[in-house]
């Protein structure tokens, strides 16, 4: 079911966590709410879940206004950043909790729990307690617990935040696969742009309690609405008074049409990418991102000369212009 957030404002004392936020999440989509820490992402998720009440605005799920409906009657699946496992219950009892609340017949609960544990690959851990699981397993248990009640929408608050890098990457791929299998409308909060780009169909960039831009991962990366979105979604460097992606700077050994002369200051190789830090004639500093092979061909050394120009695709945005932002 779709989620519709209309002009929601939420204040905590003098702090405005959400400032007139509107957002449409299409039915069956996986949308990432991306933004820096403390910029209102989690608050928006909590307001949608009914754990916090908005001061202004409304929330609709599947076309029904639920603004005044308490959390326990919204039928949403929620995962906390901490996963909030029920510590004194086993994995199976955790997953069964929402079903027992709904007074489902015992046989139905048993088969549903088995199905959910199978889905999140925790069948063998059914009788363990949360304290006996790894972080990734607790995360999957929390997901199974939320999914067991067959929620209208799934809300995930930094679902991979508390896990180490490799587990994060595996779970991301797994979560995307799960979504493709279940097609449940999912809103996921993250501060990690790579995570948002990799997992989501739609990315909503939130900053300072406002939605800055909503679009597909490529849209927001290539056509950022403003400087904030541009700099938050990927590396950026200033060139001719505008922000530009470092991989959109072409570095050459010879002058060409529209190119400017620069002095190479530093060449840093990080895995397959090479970062070239340069000083322009007017004293500005920029950096470019090149594939390793290309950098090797150019034989760049610090102190050497190079000519730079902007590649004619990708993100370009005038810093002074209609674009609001930094």
């Amino acid at each position, binding site marked *: 079911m779709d989620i519709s957030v209309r002009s929601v404002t939420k204040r905590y004392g003098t702090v405005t966590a959400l400032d007139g936020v509107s957002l449409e999440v299409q039915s069956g989509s996986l949308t990432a709410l991306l933004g820096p820490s403390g910029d209102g992402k989690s608050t928006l998720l909590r307001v949608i879940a009914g*754990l916090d009440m908005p001061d202004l605005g409304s929330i609709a799920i599947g076309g029904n206004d639920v603004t005044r409906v308490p959390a326990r009657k919204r*039928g*949403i699946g929620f995962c906390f950043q901490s996963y909030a496992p029920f*510590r004194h219950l086993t994995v199976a009892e955790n997953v069964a909790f*929402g079903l027992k*609340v709904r007074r489902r017949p015992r046989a139905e609960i048993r088969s549903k729990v088995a199905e959910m544990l199978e889905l999140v690959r925790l069948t063998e851990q059914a009788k363990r*307690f949360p304290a006996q699981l790894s972080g990734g397993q607790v995360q999957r248990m929390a997901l199974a*617990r939320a999914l067991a*009640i067959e929620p209208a929408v799934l809300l995930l608050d930094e679902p991979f935040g508390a896990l180490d890098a490799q587990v994060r990457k595996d779970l991301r791929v797994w979560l995307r696969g799960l979504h493709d299998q279940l097609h449940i409308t999912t809103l996921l909060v993250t501060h990690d742009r790579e995570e948002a780009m990799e997992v989501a169909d739609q990315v909503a960039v939130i900053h300072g309690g406002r939605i800055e831009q909503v679009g597909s991962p490529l849209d927001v990366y290539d056509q950022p609405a403003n400087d904030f979105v541009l700099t938050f979604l990927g590396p950026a460097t200033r060139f001719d008074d505008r922000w530009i992606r470092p991989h959109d700077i072409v570095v050459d050994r010879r002058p060409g049409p529209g190119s400017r002369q620069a002095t190479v200051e530093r060449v840093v190789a990080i895995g397959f990418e090479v970062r070239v830090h340069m000083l322009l004639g007017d004293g500005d500093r920029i950096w470019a991102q090149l594939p390793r092979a290309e950098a090797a061909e150019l034989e760049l050394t610090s102190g050497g000369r190079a000519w730079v120009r902007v590649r004619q695709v990708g993100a370009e945005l005038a810093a002074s212009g209609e674009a609001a932002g930094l």
Partner: protein
Amino acid sequence: MRGRWLIRGLGLGYLAVLIALPVGAIFWRALSPGLAAVWAAVSSPDAVHALLLTLGTGVIAVVANTVFGVGAALLLVRHRFPGAGLLEALCDLPLSVSPVVIGLALVLFYGEGGWIGGWLSAHAIQVIFSPPSIVLAVAFVSLPYVVREVMPVLQELGTEQEQMAATLGSSPLRTFLRLTLPAIRWGLAYGITLTCARVLGEFGAVSIVSGSIEGQTQTLTLLVNDRFSNFDQPGAYAVAVLLALISLSVLGLLSLSRSRREAAVR
């Protein structure tokens, strides 16, 4: 190495001189006249009445303070409201006020000529010098323990599990019974144990409000004191040992269930 032994020795010596040896002495002296004499001393009508009175009033006070304590702890930990500081201070008050003062305060309030004593006697309700006063006195002195033991556990627990339960459709009552209560159960059990111990052992406040009327308002502690003052020392020792055994069994019950649970989890 030697330092560690020294510290252990000092600790054990301190406990022995202060607690273990005097308590041991009471058991020794109480049992020395023989079991028949001890049984006679604790099964006399006044002793049986004192035992039943102590247990009866104690149970009421413990239940009341358990319910109040959990409620007050939830209120203080989970909510901000005007007067929270005052409530917290009042919960600690019984710890800092002498039981004698508490007894006098209860007499002044509920007694003949007291603030509401007149109204009470007009409705033929006698509080002071009757069992209800004992309930009031022991409930007063034992009030802080459940609140104090449960509060830190609730703080540690946080609210996310409860919010999670709400999103799963659980009502506040169900969430409390299925999640909050199991999570705080050991803090609560410890608080109840301390409350029981305090209730069973209270002397000062009870002696003032109850009047210590033999066979009517005499609790076990008052009976011990009464017999001791009337030169029935073997009788006093026997009842004292009975009192100690009841307290010890409450403590024993707690540690038994605790070790069982730990064995189950490991």
